[in-house]
């Protein structure tokens, strides 16, 4: 594995420590933006879970759609932030909306616990289907959303 080309776009949407400006210690306002966004995102996730409770042996649709929607939204957000170029986004936009809201909204731990719960309930087939379907849908959502947003931005730039 090699060091990324200097100036190359970050893979990590939260931090690119190859960018010297990002190597400085995080400022209090960045941490506050991440915390505030996390509170918003987690509250929304909790709300979805209350509206759409999954039984002990049922397919966890709330976690599934929360994760898929959050992945689509980060695709849109990152395409807007990294490709709009001309106008640099507000420095707290990514910490708040990306790291905070979408990071707090989506969850990997509940996904793993859902799988384990289905397995304990004797529903191995459903557990495997849930694990695979979430992964495929999440990756498909981030790809489709980022691609469509880039297309839209390009179309607007050409017009």
């Amino acid at each position, binding site marked *: 594995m090699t060091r990324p080309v200097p100036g190359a776009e970050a893979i990590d949407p939260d931090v690119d420590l190859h960018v010297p400006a990002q190597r400085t210690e995080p400022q209090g306002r960045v941490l506050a933006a991440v915390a505030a966004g996390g509170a918003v995102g987690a509250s929304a996730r909790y709300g979805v879970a209350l509206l759409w409770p999954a039984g002990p042996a049922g397919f966890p649709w709330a976690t599934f759609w929360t994760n898929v929607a959050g992945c689509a939204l980060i695709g849109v957000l990152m395409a807007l932030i990294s490709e709009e170029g001309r106008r640099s986004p507000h420095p707290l936009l990514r910490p708040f909306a990306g790291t905070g809201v979408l990071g707090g909204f989506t969850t990997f731990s509940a996904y793993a616990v859902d799988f384990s719960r289905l397995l304990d309930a004797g529903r191995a087939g459903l557990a495997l289907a849930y694990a695979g379907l979430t992964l495929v849908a999440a990756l498909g*959502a981030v790809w489709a959303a980022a691609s469509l947003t880039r297309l839209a931005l390009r179309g607007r730039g050409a017009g």
Partner: protein
Amino acid sequence: MNWLLVVAGAVVGAPLRYLTDRFVQARHDSVFPWGTFVVNAGACLVLGVLTGAVLAGAGSSRLALLLGTGLCGALSTYSTFSYETLRLAERGWKFLAAANAAASVLVGLGAVTLGSQVAGQLFA
């Protein structure tokens, strides 16, 4: 009240994910997103322990909301994981993208199982 417990957990979990990611990313030079990988695996282990403890009767539903839904939920992320996997694939590191997806899922599922088994026996 329940909602406040979730928020209290999340205002700690989200910045903790950000700081852990920075800490890990500053300590390696590869393009593999170890920061998110570590944070997700850690959150899965903690949530596994919590789930095992609650099932064994050692944890309350309030604790589950604070530490599970709030802290672990905000500490772990699916959106950053999927975006980082997409960027690896788009930049030509297709093997690393597939490895990240497979390893994150397998390690996450394993961490939950390990955590809940250990806690289930400890708190039984």
